[in-house]
């Protein structure tokens, strides 16, 4: 934990070049210099910002080993400022993960492998990436935090686990495509959903959030940017522009989380055993249904009907 419980975070909002790690390393260097110049202790880059997002069959050719030369270069860049890198990670057994790596003072401090790989609608991630299997908070010189990548954060369980694991801040690299053009709005629908969930998690779990999204287009798909830093009360500390490159800097203070947690000690009151027991029960129920070849969603209807019948009899 830093001595005064606060640090300056930056979100680097880039338009990476698809498949060109070298060009993107150049963009990283510029943003790192700017973030340092603006007093940041940590700069968070967006999801897959070292490679571009729509990789498809390029995944294996742009993948980096954590012990490879590119990472070594980035580790050197992290001597004076901590960096969250968004990349394709190749494991020694040749799996490819959509990963984010926290580098600080020349070392790898934390690695998060994206757990929830969207594979529906316009997304195809699970076709190309191996799924991560952990949600873990980690200790670093800024205190205890967690990394969640984009779609991870659409699953409330991930933020819940991070908060229960005592993360005081979440770093979220994202590559969120713009879509939906509702009338009377300044931004696309997806930008507004994201801003809603970012605010929801920070207020509900009293955690700070550094959300770093990308911009630019890939095959006609635009990314909306709008990176933001929120404090543990859900208030915006910094907000990047929409749809164009930017870099924003803001202070993350653990005392906001303290104030919130004093006012409403929701995490303290969280009943872990209850959650675990109920999850085990639910898993058992789903497994049983599956083994009977039934569709899980039918169950509540049937249970409801059975209850209604019982109620009628009594």
């Amino acid at each position: 934990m830093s001595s005064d419980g606060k640090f300056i975070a930056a979100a680097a909002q880039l338009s990476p070049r698809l498949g060109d790690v070298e060009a993107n390393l150049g963009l990283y260097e510029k943003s790192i210099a700017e973030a340092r110049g603006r007093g940041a202790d940590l700069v968070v880059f967006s999801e897959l910002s070292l490679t571009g997002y729509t990789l498809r069959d390029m995944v294996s050719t742009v993948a980096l080993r954590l012990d490879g030369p590119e990472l070594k270069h980035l580790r050197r860049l992290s001597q004076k400022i901590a960096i969250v890198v968004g990349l394709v990670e190749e494991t020694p057994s040749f799996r490819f993960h959509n990963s984010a790596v926290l580098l600080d003072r020349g070392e790898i401090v934390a690695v998060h492998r994206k757990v929830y790989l969207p594979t529906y609608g316009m997304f195809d991630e699970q076709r190309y990436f191996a799924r991560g299997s952990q949600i873990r908070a980690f200790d670093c010189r800024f205190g205890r935090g967690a990394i969640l990548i984009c779609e991870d954060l659409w699953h409330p369980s991930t933020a819940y686990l991070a908060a229960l694991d005592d993360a005081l801040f979440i770093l979220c690299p994202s590559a969120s495509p713009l879509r939906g053009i509702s009338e009377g709005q300044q931004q696309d629908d997806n930008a507004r959903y994201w801003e809603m969930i970012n605010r929801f998690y920070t207020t509900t779990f009293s955690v700070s959030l550094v959300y770093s999204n990308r911009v630019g287009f890939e095959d006609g798909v635009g990314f909306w940017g709008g990176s933001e830093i929120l404090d543990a009360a859900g208030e915006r500390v910094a907000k990047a522009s929409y749809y164009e490159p930017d870099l924003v800097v803001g202070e993350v203070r653990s005392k906001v989380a303290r104030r919130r947690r004093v006012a409403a000690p929701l995490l303290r009151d969280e009943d872990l055993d209850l959650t675990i027991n109920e999850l085990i029960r639910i898993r058992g129920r789903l497994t049983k249904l599956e083994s009977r070849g039934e569709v899980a969603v039918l169950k509540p209807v049937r249970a409801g009907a059975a209850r209604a019948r019982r109620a009628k009899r009594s």
Partner: protein
Amino acid sequence: MIPCNTPLLRKILVAFIRDEVRKVGLGRVVLGLSGGVDSSLSAFLAAEALGPANVLGVRLPYRTSSRESLEDAQRVVGQLGIASLTIDITPQVDSYFELFPDADKRRRGNKMARERMTILYDQSAKWQALVLGTSNKTELLLGYGTLHGDMASAVNPIGDLYKTQVWALAEAMGVPESIVEKEPSADLFAGQTDESDLGFGYREVDRFLYLMVDERYSTAELEGAGFEREFIRRVSDMVRGSQFKRRLPIIAKVSHRTIDRDFRYARDWGL
């Protein structure tokens, strides 16, 4: 009912053109200017994205094309201050059909659309520019366009906009009123209009397509929304029947890695 946030659309589509064109290493676009609202809107978006000097509007009349269409196209050129060129396609079309004097309107119309596109691609090579597409979502879904003709392009800013959205954005961007308000026509022969060709109006079919495609309504739900069963069948058949126009040609798979099946890259891969 179909959402149409014109300031936001304008911002996104202008950024799209700028990004996708410059990424290729170019700074210019070429497009055919028919005098209709789709190509006029595309020209307005391109001029805002790249600067009017970097947009070439090509008027490609055939001898039966209406005079008003040519004038409307010229109005767009004048208002935006873009570069322009006029090439009469009559000789090349007529010399071909001298061999096939019995060819019907449909063959002739398709041939004209394809001749125009070969010219646009040639001009794009000469001018080091990309060909800007001007097909909207309604006509792409209905297949109301010529494959390798007006449906061809390098980048298309309006392909995810229904016709009614095109009208709204065109109006918001200051496309001349005479163009926004005139009856849409492919102008392949005198007196032709889109709505008489199609047998229904754009407003009606746009509402239908929006509910069917964007909102994923079932047939029963579409009936519930007030559409006649016959209309639902007819339009659904048009969408399904024109799927081939929205895809690359199918390739017989014999190797382990076939283009677009298990050789999968974004188009931006090549940049």
